């Protein structure tokens, strides 16, 4: 590659990374663009000026936690976490409904199971119980036995999902009487179930959401307040709203890509639509009432911040303990080992470790050693030893280990510090890929080059909007640049 070509590629990578970093929260706008079904000029997006009447129903809303029991702590100022959520909920004296959209976990790993276990302990067993919890695709990705076992004690709602299983924990709707209001809460899943969940032996069946919605309100008093928690993307949610009859009074969108919820409810043909955000970073504090037969919503987002000065401060102390117990369980059950070596490597080769790379690439190795990537594992070790900030087995927690090692989760990748010490830290192969074939025949098995074969978005796998909010590819690249070996 000529210098000009390299420069061009770097510029392209720079532009891409810049866009990623600067517009890290553009997903919702993209979704807005994708929506062509209704005229947004009718959208009343600036309803902050709405003044709720004193008897408005006050609803606290969360959703799409995706397994983020608490912020990882890699960066200061991270939002969210169950402890902070319960601190906020616990301070509120006069709310009427506590709703969780669902998608409590992000996947189907042993860690996700333990996370759901802990989440259900907090959501359904502690003093402030949730009134309803929706069911999302991510929840269903767990084996039904696990999922239903954890949620059996909770108020799970799934209006257009049915199951013949005895242990199916979800109800088609939940009712709550609030002063003079009768409120019915439903939860709709818009995307089709994945193929793996369909066909013979399927434990869950999805029905038409609009028909399911109509059914649960059939014959009900028009005065009943109708709340829908709707799982799907922004466009799907906007599209289904006009099809829901009777008209909902409030739709809570549970879109797993909707990072930053807007406090102003969107008005979709007279139906207020709010989004719950992701990763449990914020709560919505909404007030719902009817005015001349029309549903109105005034909403605020509550960022769940921690203490800015007290290390580890803030958050409900009891929930913090429960989350701490989860951390201990993960270590004691050796979940780290259970999740190691589960998937094939991206290029089919094996990981060989930094030492092997350094034999032929001494310049790059020297540059790497001077970078923070070379001390990534040590960061975890220090965090583990710091009782004020962490104090729990950080080096045994898969979410943390994944970003501080090479190839964790993949065949021949990091397992434990004892078994694979050469794959600790963010080494060469974390970015360039496994090198066993390359080391045998370098000319015919070229590895990825950042800005070239590999996309700079790779950095964002760990340096995402939360872990590295100030991340700029061009700046950070200067800190790890190692170039080519001199000929």
């Amino acid at each position, binding site marked *: 590659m000529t210098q000009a070509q390299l420069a061009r590629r770097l510029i392209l990578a720079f*532009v891409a990374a*810049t*866009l990623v*970093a*600067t*517009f890290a929260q*553009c997903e919702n*706008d993209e979704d*807005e*663009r*994708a*929506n*062509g079904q209704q*005229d*947004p*000029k*009718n*959208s*009343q*997006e*600036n309803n902050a000026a709405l003044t709720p009447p004193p008897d408005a129903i006050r609803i606290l809303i969360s959703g799409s936690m995706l397994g983020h029991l608490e912020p990882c702590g890699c960066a200061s100022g991270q939002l969210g976490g169950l402890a902070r959520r319960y*601190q906020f*909920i*616990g*301070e509120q004296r006069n709310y009427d409904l506590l709703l969780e959209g669902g998608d409590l976990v992000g996947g189907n790993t042993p860690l996700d199971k333990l996370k759901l*276990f802990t989440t259900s*302990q*907090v959501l359904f*067993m*502690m*003093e402030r119980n949730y009134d309803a919890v929706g069911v999302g695709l991510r929840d269903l990705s767990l084996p039904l036995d696990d999922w239903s076992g954890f949620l059996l004690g909770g108020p799970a709602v799934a209006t257009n999902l049915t199951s013949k299983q005895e242990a199916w924990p979800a109800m088609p709707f939940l009712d709550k009487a609030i002063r003079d209001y009768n409120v019915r809460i439903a939860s709709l899943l818009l995307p089709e179930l994945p193929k793996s969940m369909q066909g013979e032996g399927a434990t869950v069946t999805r029905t038409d959401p609009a028909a399911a919605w109509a059914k649960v309100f059939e014959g009900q008093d028009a005065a009943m307040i109708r709340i829908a928690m709707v799982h799907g993307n922004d466009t799907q949610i906007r599209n289904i709203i006009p099809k829901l009859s009777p008209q909902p009074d409030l739709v809570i969108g549970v879109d797993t890509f909707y990072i*930053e919820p*807007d406090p*102003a409810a969107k008005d979709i043909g007279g139906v207020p639509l709010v989004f719950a955000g992701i990763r449990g970073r914020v709560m919505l504090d909404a007030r719902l009432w009817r005015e001349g037969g029309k549903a109105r919503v005034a909403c605020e987002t509550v*960022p769940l*911040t921690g*203490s*800015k*000065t*007290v290390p580890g*401060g*803030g958050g*409900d*102390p*009891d*929930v913090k*303990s*429960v989350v*701490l*117990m989860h951390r*201990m*369980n993960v270590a004691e*059950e050796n979940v780290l080992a259970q999740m190691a070596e589960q998937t094939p490597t991206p290029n089919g080769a094996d990981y060989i470790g930094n030492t092997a790379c350094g034999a032929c690439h001494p310049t790059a190795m020297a540059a790497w050693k001077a970078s923070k990537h070379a001390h990534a594992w040590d960061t975890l070790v220090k965090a583990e030893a710091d*009782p004020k900030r962490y*104090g*729990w087995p950080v080096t045994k927690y898969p979410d943390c280990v994944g970003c501080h090692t090479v190839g964790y989760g993949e065949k021949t990748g990091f397992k434990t510090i004892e078994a694979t010490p050469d794959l600790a830290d963010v080494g060469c192969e974390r970015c360039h890929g496994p090198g066993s074939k390359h080391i045998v025949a370098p000319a015919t098995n070229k590895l990825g080059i950042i800005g070239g074969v590999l996309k700079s978005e790779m950095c964002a796998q760990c340096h995402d909007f939360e872990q590295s909010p*100030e991340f*700029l590819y*061009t*700046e950070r690249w200067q800190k790890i640049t190692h170039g080519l070996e001199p000929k």
Partner: protein
Amino acid sequence: MRLLLPLLIALPLTHSACSHRDADGATNSTNANASVDGNTGTQMSKHANSKERAPLVLDHDFGVVPHGEGRTHEFALDLSQLNEPHVPLRVHLECSCGRAELVMRKPDGTERHIDGTGYKHNLPTEDEQAILRILLDTRKKEARDIGSTISRGYIVLQPLSDETGMARERWAFVVRFAIDSPVTLHPFSELDFQSVSQSMQGEILTTMRGDENHPNLEFLSISTTDESLEATLEPDDGRTVLRTRCTPGRFGNHRGLVLVKTNLPGYVIALEAKWKVVADLEATPMRKVSFRAAFDRAQKPGVEIRQAVLVIDHNRHRSPEFLVRGIVGDDGRDVSHCFEIKMTPVPTEDRRQRMTVRYLGGLLTGDEPAAQAPVTFRGKIILAKHEKDIVGGDDPTLPIRLVVFPSKTP
């Protein structure tokens, strides 16, 4: 065009984010913008010059703002730089002490707010200037120095010709600031009491003194916003000790402020306090352990990890240890021999212990008809304190509900 606008914005924005500052801490990119920096409060003192064009890069550095003061900056938005009319819909700023507003201003200074719709009436008229106003209120931050910080935001715009909303754009901006607090608080500028149990009183000592620029700072009087908080000021060798006590009241989470007036005109130090009032003896997440087990045999060691609760005695006049006084069924049967209870201290939490429960077998008496499925066992584990911790006849116990469902599989 849809891709072009963010590109145009992103590239120089990134450049400016990387650029170093002038000696006075201001960036060049704000030269075209009117500013009221330097004033305290958030009152406007002059209007943005509508003749000058704000560049596509909206970047303003407030410099170092004394804690307790406010700042306002206005960007005069030149929407004509976009290649077709765009209606500003709304503005978002990610900043805990900052707020952003979009207004249209006439030459006489009167302003109108836009209503968030994409209609033409939200475009500036010929004699109006679109203004993005940033209001910074450092009173919303805790009293401590904060180094150079960047807050990002964006304006959402919709092309007038866009009937669908599919072509909306974001116009990114950044504001930079640092905060200089005249007071140094040690160890923290917040009061986090964590749990305050019924029999105990929380107390936090905070030392206060003026920083190097305010050596003569005096602390005049003190008040709190919650009757559970009581605070005093005590002189101590050239510094002042703030002693804050938290008396338990109603159960649950609480938040309040401790307000300290100073001799700096108008400057009041506000320390946020948080606490949770709890019972002396607690089990979390709840006073209950439930699990499934085959009744005819012992559970394998290791399963008890998930059959656990955290128990704590908050009363520091006693040791944190518990003993198991008994395990009884709802029918009064003593089943202590059927379960193994283990207590292990929780790391980093000096008084909390994890109590695990493992079934050892023995719930079946042998008299059950073979065809009859075992019924769920319901009972309780009674935790109590050691004799040395029982004072004056006070013998506290912590009953924990125990429910064992029969295993589904043989």
